[in-house]
């Protein structure tokens, strides 16, 4: 029986690697299906620092990664202006680093390695460093300026998915990979489950790409091939506001809690690195020890963190390719692993793309797409390095905000920052549309409606990733009920509101529990009161 292929390529995984691969394939004219078991950017993509690496961190140990990083860094600044902020970065040396062998001698070695990798790095005096970033630990004895920045991974992933769809790709979220369709030594496609309806389906394509991050280990097992993956948990803490405006790194061998990144309206410290069993990857909890460690190291970079409110904690799993000889996982190259299983394992129609990092997602996608094209006999060159992503044609908040006649409101400026030049698609038609639903993050009803209409939002978590709703200091205490109602109505299912709110409250609660003391505990009590005291929270009726 002849098999009809609906697609040229199926991509498993809606993280940044899968999204980038789907975009690249679609731009090269392939018919693409992207499947993701949750929402996009729910794995490691949405659970990292959001650091636009300059590559300096890898310069000494792994010059190849460093060179990749700085190349991609420059590319992302061009194609993803709406997702990237040019904060600049510092690598600081503290007095105690001298004792551990990472003093100013190491700094010279570091500078040299950066220059060799093509990273523009220059040493500045401690005084200059403090002027550049007043929150930096004033005890520093040396500093190097590098072209670090911050990148919003949600936005970047969403922009790739949107662009893939604009180039004809079919995107199925909440669609879980169950198994392969297989004939002998050939993968023919995938069996999937729509996790919301319970419906199963089959899709066929001559090539399937495994871009499932750490879960790619299990996907490969289903195909009967083994990729030795290494689940390395990394925990991070979110602080209540922008404490620093320049990325602060520690100039030493990579260790726990040595990067502090200002991202959107917050600052993030991370990360830890612990090997965890595969079973834990789906429900990670940040432990008190991890919190203590991050705070201790964070305060060494930036003493002000000692008196700054911690909003929440979260953790992700790096999809590293395992090297059993190193128990910490730190010295593993973050290099890209692109496997054509036909040449590696004799299995046709199957490609895995893994390893790498957020920074090099585009390059990973390019390599994977090159492999797919080669297998399909398609001869098209990659254009992703030169084509701006949707929202980033002119993505800077300063320019986009000017589009609003009579001056942008706070909600419109917020939207301009998040949606870039796509902000014109948000319909601010009525007074109601202009009303803020999330006051901490300046999210209007109009932006929520837009996200439902055009960005494939199904629940409040999805909405958060596209609009920051509920990500502010109150962690949703004041907006979840309102946002749930607005979302349920926009979805045309007003009866869903309570369920949407309950799910999102559990998710917010999880991140707050890990840091539940001090001011965060006050907010937690208040949150309980607002949602559980038995009456709607309103001043009018007391």
């Amino acid at each position, binding site marked *: 029986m002849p098999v009809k292929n609906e697609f040229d390529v199926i991509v498993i995984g809606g993280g940044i690697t899968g999204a980038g691969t789907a975009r690249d394939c679609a731009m090269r004219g392939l018919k693409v299906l992207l499947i993701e078991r949750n929402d996009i950017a729910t794995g490691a993509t949405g659970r990292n620092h959001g650091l636009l690496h300059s590559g300096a961190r890898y310069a000494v140990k792994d010059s190849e990664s460093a060179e990749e990083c700085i190349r991609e860094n420059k590319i992302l600044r061009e194609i993803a202006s709406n997702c990237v902020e040019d904060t600049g970065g510092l690598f600081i040396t503290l007095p105690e680093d001298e004792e551990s062998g990472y003093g100013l001698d190491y700094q010279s070695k570091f500078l040299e390695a950066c220059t060799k990798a093509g990273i523009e790095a220059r040493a500045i005096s401690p005084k200059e460093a403090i002027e550049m970033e007043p929150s930096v630990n004033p005890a520093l004895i040396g500093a190097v300026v590098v072209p670090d920045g911050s990148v919003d991974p949600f936005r970047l992933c969403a922009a790739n998915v949107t662009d893939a769809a604009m180039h004809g790709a079919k995107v199925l979220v909440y669609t879980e990979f169950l198994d392969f369709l297989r004939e002998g030594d050939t993968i023919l496609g995938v069996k999937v489950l729509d996790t919301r309806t319970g419906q199963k389906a089959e899709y066929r394509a001559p090539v399937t790409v495994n871009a499932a991050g750490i879960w790619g280990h299990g996907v490969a097992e289903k195909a009967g091939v083994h990729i030795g993956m290494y689940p390395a948990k990394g925990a991070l803490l979110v602080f209540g506001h922008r404490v620093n405006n320049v990325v602060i790194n520690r100039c030493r061998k990579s260790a726990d809690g040595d990067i502090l990144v200002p991202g959107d309206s917050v600052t993030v410290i991370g990360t830890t690195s612990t090997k965890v069993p595969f079973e834990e990857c789906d429900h990670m909890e940040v432990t008190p020890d991890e919190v203590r460690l991050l705070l201790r190291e964070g305060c060494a970079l930036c003493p002000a963190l000692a008196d700054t409110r911690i909003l929440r904690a979260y953790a992700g799993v790096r999809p590293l390719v395992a090297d059993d000889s190193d128990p910490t996982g730190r010295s593993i190259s973050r290099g890209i692993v692109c496997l054509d299983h036909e040449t590696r394992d004799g299995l046709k129609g199957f490609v895995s793309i893994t390893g790498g990092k957020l920074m090099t997602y585009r390059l990973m996608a390019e390599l994977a797409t090159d492999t797919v094209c080669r297998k399909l006999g398609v001869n098209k060159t990659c254009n992703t390095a030169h084509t701006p992503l949707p929202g980033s044609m002119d993505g800077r*908040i300063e320019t986009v905000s000017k589009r609003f006649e009579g001056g942008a409101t*706070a909600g419109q400026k*917020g939207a301009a920052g998040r949606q870039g030049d796509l902000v014109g698609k948000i319909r601010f038609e009525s007074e109601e549309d202009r009303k803020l639903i999330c*006051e901490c993050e300046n999210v209007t009803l109009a932006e929520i409606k837009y996200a439902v209409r055009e960005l494939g939002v199904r629940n409040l978590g999805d909405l958060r990733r596209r609009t920051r709703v509920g990500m*502010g200091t109150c962690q949703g205490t004041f907006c979840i009920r309102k946002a749930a109602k607005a979302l349920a109505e926009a979805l045309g299912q007003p009866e869903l509101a309570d369920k949407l709110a309950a799910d999102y409250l559990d998710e917010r609660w999880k991140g707050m529990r890990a840091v539940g003391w001090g001011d965060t505990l006050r907010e937690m009590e208040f949150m309980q009161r607002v949602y559980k005291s038995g009456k709607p929270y309103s001043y009018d009726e007391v």
Partner: protein
Amino acid sequence: MQERNISANNFEQCQKCSICETVCPVMANNPAYAGPKRSGPDGERYRLKNGIFFEDSLKYCLNCKRCEVACPSGVRVADLIQQARIDYGRKLPKLRDTMLASTDQVGPLASAFAPIANFSLGLAPVKGVMHLALGVDRHRTLPKYASETFVRWFKKNAEDKQAQYSKHISYYHGCYANYNYPQLGKDFVAVMNAFGYGVHLIEGERCCGVAKIANGMIEAATRDARTNVDLFRESVKAGREIVTVSTTCTMTLLEEYPTLLKVGNDQVRDHIHLVERFLWKAIASGEVKPVWKEDWKARAAYHCPCHQERLGLGIFTMELMKMIPGMELTELESNCCGIAGTYGFKKENYKVSQAIGKPLFDDIAAAAPEFVVCECETCKWQIEMSTGVPVKNPVSILADALDLDKTAILNKPTK
């Protein structure tokens, strides 16, 4: 290493409970104002991310500080708003704002030509010009300027007599008592002298700066603040505590100097006393003894001005007034009168200003007192203009209710 997770960044202590929004008099009356929570702590967080989030509507905040009194988390909401206006709103103030704000520069000129100034300020065509050209609302009765300033009167009539007392204080009279209402200064001297305190001017005292802060003239306000703090320090060195009469001046000297103007006042702040607190303490401790007029009687209502609410010292005014045997005093519900210094004088704020004051005006009408007791000079203008009920400063009430001669004899130091 942090164990407490209690932020030293004051704005981060905001839990978003939004109670400040329920007490904000502007928010209830001006839809263009985003309210204290969004203009203050919420806005601050986004301004730290990008200055583009500074909103021009912060100018509608009248700095009454009611949000700070209401906040259960100790957030200095109004300070955050004023600070943002200083940091991000650096535009040249309008001529009108400069004129309204420069109380101690316009004051001397206006006093010199007081008859002409008052006459022309009251004329309809002049008011029309000010309304249109300067943006001072035509409905406003501008504060009258006295033809003889308090300082001039003091030097001519009182200064020589002060040496006879055994206790001495410095009097920070402020602009209002000096230029607009010297009688208050005269009453202050009379009361203090009766209680046995010699009164001394603070030579070279500058305006506290509140009006300059409100109108964006930060450099000038900071210069004045430095001068004042230096002068206060000298007074303390000379053994004289500083006594103030205006609640707004006092709040500015105590609170706004270190927080907004970054002028340290640590060495002098415990030596600056609002007169009601100073006298209540002196009488309650028996250090001074009042003799009240036997036939003095009044039925009055106390309006606690916003800045007195913020200072939290209204209790002393109430307790001091209750010491007067003939005083029948009720306390009005705490509400803003709407003037907020120079705010209500601006054309664009007039309507909002009157709407804000309405609940208070209604309360006063219902209480129908002989007069309103209030420590604040601008409240006085607003309440008198809007209700026709006279407003008296507690010091003037004391000057009237005390038998000054007998009090003076009783408090004369026995040698």
